[in-house]
């Protein structure tokens, strides 16, 4: 068995996940009338409106900690570009031409940076119309902010859908976040370069 995520990173991941669902479901309630019923999960419209920015802010802070720990392993390389070129075949079920991945493959890196960008936009634009704490400000600024906030939220939700689906699709992955360890076969199959690195590293 190989350790992929130590306890603290896993707990932080799940804090982010819970806050994502809190902020996401309350945000969707305001985004489309057909989803307004979701505000009932938070005690009604006014409570959803009150809680949403706090959950969102905490989510961004927790994510920032995770991102600081993981960004180096998510730097883009030429191999990743090659990986993306082959990803159509991979989605069709043929992984044979895929260049070997390190700890993260290009798809995971793409999702990581998508989340970084979306959360940064959500944070900055969210402050621009959080009138409980910040002055109401210029109306044109608010209009730009709400539109970017909605666009970034959509990007984040789509990213999370892909993220969750990938975890379900690639068997043995969920365990990395629930127990922290993965089997060596999983690592060799899905992240051969990382597997090699782990085996060559002097044991603690």
């Amino acid at each position, binding site marked *: *068995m190989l*350790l992929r995520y*130590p*306890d*603290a*990173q*896993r*707990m932080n991941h799940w804090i982010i996940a819970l806050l994502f669902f809190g902020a996401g479901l309350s945000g969707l*309630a*305001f*985004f*489309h*009338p*057909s*989803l*307004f019923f979701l505000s009932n999960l938070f005690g*009604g*419209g*006014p409570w*959803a*409106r009150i809680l949403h920015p706090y959950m969102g802010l905490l989510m961004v802070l927790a994510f920032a900690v995770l991102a600081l*720990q993981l960004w180096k392993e998510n730097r883009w390389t030429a191999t990743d570009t090659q990986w993306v070129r082959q990803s159509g075949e991979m989605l*069709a079920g043929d*992984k044979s031409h895929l260049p070997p991945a390190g700890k993260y493959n290009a798809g995971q890196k793409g999702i990581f940076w998508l989340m970084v960008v979306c959360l940064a936009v959500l944070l900055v634009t969210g402050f621009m*119309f959080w009138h*409980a704490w910040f002055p109401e400000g210029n*109306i*044109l600024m*608010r*209009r*730009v902010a*709400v*539109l970017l906030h*909605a666009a970034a939220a*959509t990007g984040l939700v*789509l990213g999370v*859908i*892909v993220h969750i*689906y990938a975890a*379900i*699709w*690639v*068997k*043995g992955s969920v*365990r990395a976040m629930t*127990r*922290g*360890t993965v*089997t*060596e*076969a*999983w690592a*060799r*199959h*899905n992240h051969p370069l990382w597997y090699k690195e*782990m*085996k060559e*590293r002097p*044991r*603690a």
Partner: protein
Amino acid sequence: MSSLQSLDIAKRSATTTPSPDARRQVIEVAKLIDVSSCIGCKACQVACMQWNDLRDEVGHNVGVYDNPADLSPQSWTVMRFSEVEVQQDRLEWLIRKDGCMHCEDPGCLKSCPAPGAIIKYQNGIVDFISEHCIGCGNCVTGCPFDVPRISKADNKAYKCSLCSDRVGVGLEPACVKACPTGAIRFGSKEDMHEFAAERIVDLKERGYDNAGVYDPQGVGGTHVMYVLQHADQPELYHGLPKDPKISPLVSLWKGAAKPLAVAAMIGAAVAGFFHYMKVGPIESGHDNPDEDEELADERARSAAHAQGDSAGGTSPRTDRTTDPTTGPRG
């Protein structure tokens, strides 16, 4: 205001199905404010306070006649005083009664996420149903006239209701009732246009060649209209917008973006489901540890715990490779 006229609803915020629509013979109303007849006495402000039982804080003189200085949750109408020289050396004092314009296509209602918090009645009045308001401030973002104000006390949005409660029982709005010069009139929108036309003829005779009525079509027309001496330059009247319309940013946000984003989210989830059903999972052959591995993993975990590594460490470099003899057989 509260909703007492549930059969007279033309538009309802954050609602995707038709509202009660049994009554169709309702006449569209309008308030006509003749700026050229206004003497700036503020009786309309007082009447608004009295009828709606609102008391704004006593403010300070900031060097202009505007008092209070701006619309607020307690002041739903404010006289705006502008000193302009359209012709050189000919000072004009333009006094505009500011407040909700009651747009035919209300930007506040389009932006509001709370079902039924903003209502447009068949007669054209746009009303905030305060008990449904969630206090998000989207109406402020959506309004082309910068009218709604959020109360810091209760986080509800407030603005002129065109005295929908009075109009609903056949009375004119309180400001109309109180105006001593007849500068504010109220009636059917058609009648108000006729009256405005008479006023414009009169103003043109007096040399105001550009006199006209302000009923901006960019928002579908309004149910509060002005007679302006200089209708070609509405900006003179304390920045009354020349061609107000719902901002394209707001239209995109509460128009195309809504169904597209929801469709994309649902589409992504459904696509994932079908992808799995078609392609199936990616398996390495030994994705889940067998009992021996699990046991070794647990031992390694408690060993690490005993070594004081219990916090788990933040470094992914912490190696917890278990006994190689129980390695995978995938």
